[in-house]
């Protein structure tokens, strides 16, 4: 078992692998390494002063809080929408199904101004929230609304296939054994859907952490109040404070990568679970 494992007989190994690695390095790895280098120009004390400044802390709180809230809303309603799309037949169903993908396809600047128009004080929905004392646009809620929009497809698209593949005999068996629909949901459907729902939550959360375009229009961008972390990076860049921007980026990236790792694990778990039940 020394060298020369069988790679395969097809030609082009060197060319394709070489190009892949070179292009990956030039386009992704070298550029990302500038972050580490740039932020290492700071001493620990300087970096800490930037990363843990009250304004930065406020922006993390908003970014993580609103992202978690948005992902939470998406889990509840995403499972609901996935259930409706997978199980019920109603006129216009395929149109609704296509609608779910729109947040993926719509440029973020467009979703930003559209959501702002709808949820501002005079907007179609905002005007009905105003009398209830709810200010949607230009507040914490506005940020959460935008993040819900962009994360919306993730839960639905991870849960829907699981529901479609689910063996209906399980539900029939539960019913025959005397379970009501609610108990069947709680004891049979919920455990089957749980891994996919958690994966969807994590995907939606990870996407929301870095989101910029759709949020900047609706948030109002008030420092300490409605300033998300990516916007704080942008502000630092506009002041040519590259090291400061890089330091905050490293914090944000670190969180994203931890999440991505967790998602990988979750997906493996989902595959194992659905493989076992189906």
């Amino acid at each position, binding site marked *: 078992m020394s060298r020369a494992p069988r*790679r395969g007989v097809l030609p082009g190994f060197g060319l394709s692998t070489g190009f892949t690695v070179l292009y990956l390095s030039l386009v*992704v790895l070298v550029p990302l390494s*500038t972050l580490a280098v740039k932020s290492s120009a700071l001493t620990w004390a300087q970096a800490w002063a930037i990363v843990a400044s009250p304004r930065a802390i406020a922006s993390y709180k908003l970014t993580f809080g609103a992202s978690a809230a948005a992902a939470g809303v998406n889990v509840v309603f995403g499972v609901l*929408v996935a259930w*409706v799309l997978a199980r019920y037949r109603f006129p216009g169903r395929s149109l609704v199904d296509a609608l779910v993908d729109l947040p993926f396809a719509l440029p*973020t600047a467009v979703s930003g*101004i559209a959501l702002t*128009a709808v949820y501002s004080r005079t907007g179609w929905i905002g005007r009905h929230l105003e009398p209830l004392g709810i200010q949607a646009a230009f507040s914490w809620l506005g940020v959460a609304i935008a993040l819900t929009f962009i994360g919306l497809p993730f839960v639905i698209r991870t849960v829907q296939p699981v529901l479609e593949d689910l063996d209906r005999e399980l539900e029939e068996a539960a*019913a025959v054994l005397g379970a009501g629909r609610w108990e069947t949901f709680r004891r049979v459907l919920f455990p089957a859907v749980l891994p996919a729902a958690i994966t969807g939550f994590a995907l939606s959360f990870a996407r929301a952490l870095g989101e910029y375009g759709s949020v900047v229009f609706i948030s109002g961008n008030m420092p300490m109040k409605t300033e998300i972390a*990516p916007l704080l990076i942008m502000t630092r860049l506009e002041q040519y404070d590259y090291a400061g921007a890089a330091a905050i980026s490293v914090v944000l990236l670190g969180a994203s990568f931890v999440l991505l790792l967790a998602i990988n694990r979750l997906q493996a778990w989902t595959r194992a679970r659905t493989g076992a039940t189906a």
Partner: protein
Amino acid sequence: MSDASAGPADAIAPVPERAPVSARARARPRPRRVDEDPPLVRWGLTLLALGFLSAFVLVPCAAVVVEALRDGVRLWWTALVDPDALAAIRLTVLVAAIAVPLNALFGLAAAWSITRFRYRGKSALVSLIDLPFGVSPVISGMVTVLLFGAQGWFGPWLVERGWKVVFAVPGIVLATVFVTFPFVARELIPFMESQGLEEEEAAHVLGASGWQLFMKVTLPNVKWSLLYGVILCNARAMGEFGAVSVVSGHIRGLTNTLPLHVEILYNEYAFRAAFAVASLLFLLALVTLVAKKTLEWRQHHARHAARRSVTP
């Protein structure tokens, strides 16, 4: 596997005998299956789901169209043929025309390498390809500035030669390439993995050269999957906002892409024009979705046809 096609269709299980639908027959409810929800629950949940989707997707999209056409089609059109808007359209198309083929080429090479050979470090390579998906758009733009900006690694070298990357078109292209990097590879890798390599090995044994193999066997097999990836990649390339915003410098008529033009107009309170340009991007999203659904439908049917021909 064999009863996969009998899933959702029999869920509605109509009354077996096709009796003439008289008023009385319609009034008598058919027996509910044990794994079916009561009608009240069904309608309640459906309405709740539709309400959620309306509030977050349908109504905002309708708002784009309504706001764009608020003062009539003539003014909508005027906003689109404005010289700055036309320059933004041209730049957006140009950027996508460079970034998408580059990433498509990368996607093909990466998928070929990853699915056709066995070697160490392959799974690490696959994870690294996904990396740009986890990077905030603002950070994606920022790394371009850190490389090529005036204080960046290659900044002084570029300045000496009078080349401008950041706050110019090359920077916009680079940031877009970074952001749209994984799209084609993400589609091709699982697809080519599932296809296996028998056909290519056969062609190889029969004496096909590498180029013939690629053109005559691989490309025809993966073309729809490739197209799918290219469509998604293109949508993101044309719609990217955050990354491009960092590197563009927002010079009207020169370094303004369509999404940036939307922002400039909006911040100047030129709402009608902003929504007019936004409606163009909305149209792009619709075309993308229709193309995506068509391809998914095609693949679905191709799979079923293949299954039918295997099991008569």
